[in-house]
């Protein structure tokens, strides 16, 4: 079956430092990967959409300078939170969409970021 792994599951970083999180698709080829953030007491908010061989599209209020994303192949994507501050804390979710006709997006369990 289709699975999405995210690593690390939890991480703590000091304010002003950076941390990298990874997303691995297993059992299918992820032509597109969407990164979401769920801040405390809020719903999932799209950060950016990454499609292999295409430019990464960032949503309003999110930038490449702050959340650089790498999507080098059909099974892996990573995102870094640069200069993390308190407002960056939350659950970061990776959603991967397979090739073919299925519209289903498979989610990982998320990386929970705590900023001290």
């Amino acid at each position, binding site marked *: 079956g289709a699975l999405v792994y995210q690593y690390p599951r939890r991480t703590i970083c000091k304010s002003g430092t950076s941390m990298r999180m990874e997303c691995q698709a297993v059992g299918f080829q992820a032509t597109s990967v969407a990164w979401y953030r769920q801040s405390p007491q809020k719903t*999932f908010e799209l950060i950016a*959409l990454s499609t292999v061989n295409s430019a990464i599209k960032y949503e309003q209020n999110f930038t490449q300078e702050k959340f650089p994303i790498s999507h080098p192949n059909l099974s892996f994507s990573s995102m870094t939170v640069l200069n993390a501050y308190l407002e960056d804390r939350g659950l970061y979710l990776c959603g991967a969409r397979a090739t073919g006709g299925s519209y289903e997006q498979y989610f990982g369990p998320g990386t929970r970021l705590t900023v001290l």
Partner: protein
Amino acid sequence: GDSVTQTEGLVTLTEGLPVMLNCTYQTIYSNPFLFWYVHYLNESPRLLLKSSTDNKRTEHQGFHATLHKSSSSFHLQKSSAQLSDSALYYCALSDTGNTRKLIFGLGTTLQVQP
């Protein structure tokens, strides 16, 4: 802009009673896709139901929902709640069925008690 509204943050009910979780949406798209995801603690959100067909009931794992474009609603229902249904439920919206971008509601926590 597009949005999804789930009016209940928490729904608590007794096992065996019917479940209904509300979801309404706003969108500029004429053919939106609506989804229900179920999110158990420490697990990945999992697709439960999806639909883009007006007035057609869709079912999966005992749950069902019908997209009503006239009222912009996609309420999740189940005839009899089970303890294992306790989880966080998200309603989400996408345009043209391409789930690369989803707009989520705030989520509804369903607590089923014995």
